[in-house]
């Protein structure tokens, strides 16, 4: 079996498993899986920016928050149907991300990281601002009506939300994959690897960078919207700087510049804190840190890099020139 065929079989198997799991797992596990899928969408968005375009963002928790609040406000205050709020959240985040990307163009590497860090620390406080309290609910936050299943006899509410998130994730993966394998993807990576050469070749680096920021924010905003539906509640405490850090950790653990590894990264940031808490309640973050270090020593290029290395070994004969 060639590598390509193995990949297709592997993906098909993953798809079958993903669709079968909610019918055998408990509803809590379905909920937890949905959380992982939602985080995977956010990580995918961040990875477009960081992995493929070389712009580091420590502030994607802010876009996640904007997406979540957009859904919460539209549902609670305006009365939109829940499904309509998700694309609106994505569109709004695209706009905000694009606009934030414009001034951020002047900033590179660690300077951009700091600017986005500022975004992440500001957002929870902005959500508490008095003038906006009528909409955001201030410190108290907003309750979000959990969507019921339109096919109640077949799927319960948890399963429905799982398939909805899975469907959105699948769609967004396809879009990202399509975007990255062609001209646009090459342009993004050229800007990452050598911005001057990229500009010389006629790539409008400013436009591409801002657009990437927008698309990245859009993905994360969609994830935030789904996350709000899932948690049933948004509040400033839900979107602290730690969320942004989790996203970066997820991207690195899953594999920078890999779109397949994000599912793994999302599982890592969702499950490892629980594991750490089981081991020690005195210092859960020390355990988390130790696991993270062990992980990075074992798989320095993330889960995706590890998987690629394994695949290379397994299929060495078929693929390499003799």
């Amino acid at each position, binding site marked *: 079996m060639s590598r390509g065929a193995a990949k297709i079989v592997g993906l098909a198997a993953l798809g079958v498993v993903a669709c079968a799991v909610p019918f055998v797992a408990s509803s809590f596990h379905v909920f937890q899986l949905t*959380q992982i899928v939602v985080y995977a969408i956010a990580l995918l968005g961040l990875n477009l920016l960081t992995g493929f375009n070389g712009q580091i963002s420590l502030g994607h928790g802010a876009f996640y928050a904007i997406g979540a609040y957009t859904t919460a406000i539209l549902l609670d205050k305006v009365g939109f149907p829940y499904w309509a709020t998700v694309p609106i959240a994505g569109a709004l985040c695209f706009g905000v991300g694009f606009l934030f990307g414009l001034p951020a163009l002047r900033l590179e590497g660690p300077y951009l990281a700091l600017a986005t860090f500022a975004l992440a620390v500001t957002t929870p406080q902005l959500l508490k601002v*008095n003038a906006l309290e009528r909409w955001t609910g*201030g410190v108290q*936050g907003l309750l979000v009506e959990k969507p019921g299943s339109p096919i*109640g*006899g077949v799927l319960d509410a948890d399963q429905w939300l799982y398939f909805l998130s899975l469907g959105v994730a699948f769609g967004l993966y396809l879009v990202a994959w399509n975007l990255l394998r062609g001209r646009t993807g090459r342009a993004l990576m050229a800007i990452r690897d050598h911005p001057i050469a990229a500009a010389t070749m006629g790539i409008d680096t400013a436009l591409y960078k801002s657009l990437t920021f927008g698309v990245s924010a859009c993905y994360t905003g969609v994830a935030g919207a789904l996350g709000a539906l899932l*948690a049933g509640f*948004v509040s400033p405490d839900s979107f602290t700087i730690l969320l942004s850090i989790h996203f970066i950790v997820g991207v690195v653990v899953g594999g920078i510049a890999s779109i397949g590894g994000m599912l793994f990264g999302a599982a890592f940031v969702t499950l490892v804190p629980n594991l750490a808490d089981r081991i020690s309640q005195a210092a*859960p973050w020390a355990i988390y840190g130790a696991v993270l270090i062990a992980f990075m020593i074992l798989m320095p290029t993330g889960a995706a890099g590890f998987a690629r290395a394994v695949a290379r070994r397994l299929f060495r004969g078929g693929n390499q020139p003799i």
Partner: protein
Amino acid sequence: MARTATFVALVALLAGVASAKDTPGVTATEIKIGQTMPYSGPASAYGVIGKGEAAYFKMINESGGINGRKINLISVDDGYSPPKTVEQARKLVESEGVAFMFQTLGTAPNTAIQKYLQQKQVPQLFVATGADKFGDPKGNPWTMGWQPSYRIESRIYGRYVLKEKPDAKICVLYQNDDFGKDYLIGLKEALGDKYATMVVKEASYEVTDPTIDSQVVSLQGSGCTALITAATPKFAAQTIRKVFDIGWKPLHFMSNVSISVAAVLQPAGVDKSVGIITGIYLKDPNDPAFKDDPGMNEWRAFMKKYMPDADTNDANYVYAYGVATTLVQVLKQCGNDLSRENIMKQAANLQGLKLSVAIPGTEIRTSPSDYRPFSQMQLARFNGKSFERFGPVLSGD
């Protein structure tokens, strides 16, 4: 629509039948209960409450448990992040199969899981927050608070001023959020019609403000003689210092949240803190008046045996002891009917429970229409070393 409704009704019916028969987490030898605690994150200082409670249940279990059942507290970390609390609460209810939730900590985390627990009809007992909204038997019959709410505390201050200093001009400095606003509501309830004439100024601050200096100065300028400060520790310390520095000497009531000697009064300056008044409901482990108190000796013996390495100056352990005692009383009252309905019914049927760690004269009372177990406090004044209690126990009901 009709189909969905039938489905929901069917599920509810099934759930009802199931819970009447046997409660999840309850066997002949065990009662499994769940809890989320901030063992990590911004509120991790409160994590000791969960540890104190686990230790208390260990003591109960070693002496045979309750009606032969041991208490198995599964306490998990939520890092004070509401989405994590939702995840953990669902895990506890659906995967671990706990009978009920006990002492989940924090206003936002509890808000996040309240609706879910109501829908599942899982008791959310004795939530660890002073927000008044958790004592609402009509709206949320499965949720109950424990400590005197901010609103009750504020009512007590208002009534005291009304009775003892009817000529006082009152002003309020409050944090501009639910916590601070609960104090305004309580004060309005206590003063009634007189609010408009007695309260000369309200000033608020944002948690993001660097200082509250200008608010304090403007409050002094209003001619106020009785200041009620509803502030969290950092701002409380700033307020105490500023009030002293500008030579203002109002009757100063300080929120019970911010009376730690180590965290508030020492940073503000203990000499500047003399005269601060607050309402207390639990015995202070550092108060020399309780050095030979039988109730506190009981607590000290417990700490020595079950938490030998813990800091016995930390009042959170006293709190944990008090809440855990209350829960044990509820479970004793339940007898062998440990259905979720009966657990809630007995929690709402506490008839004057006296806690060994609570201020003498206070007692816990609940009823189907009163979901605020603790609603009494005694005022205490800081004398430069510790808080000295004075006057009778006051009720905020």
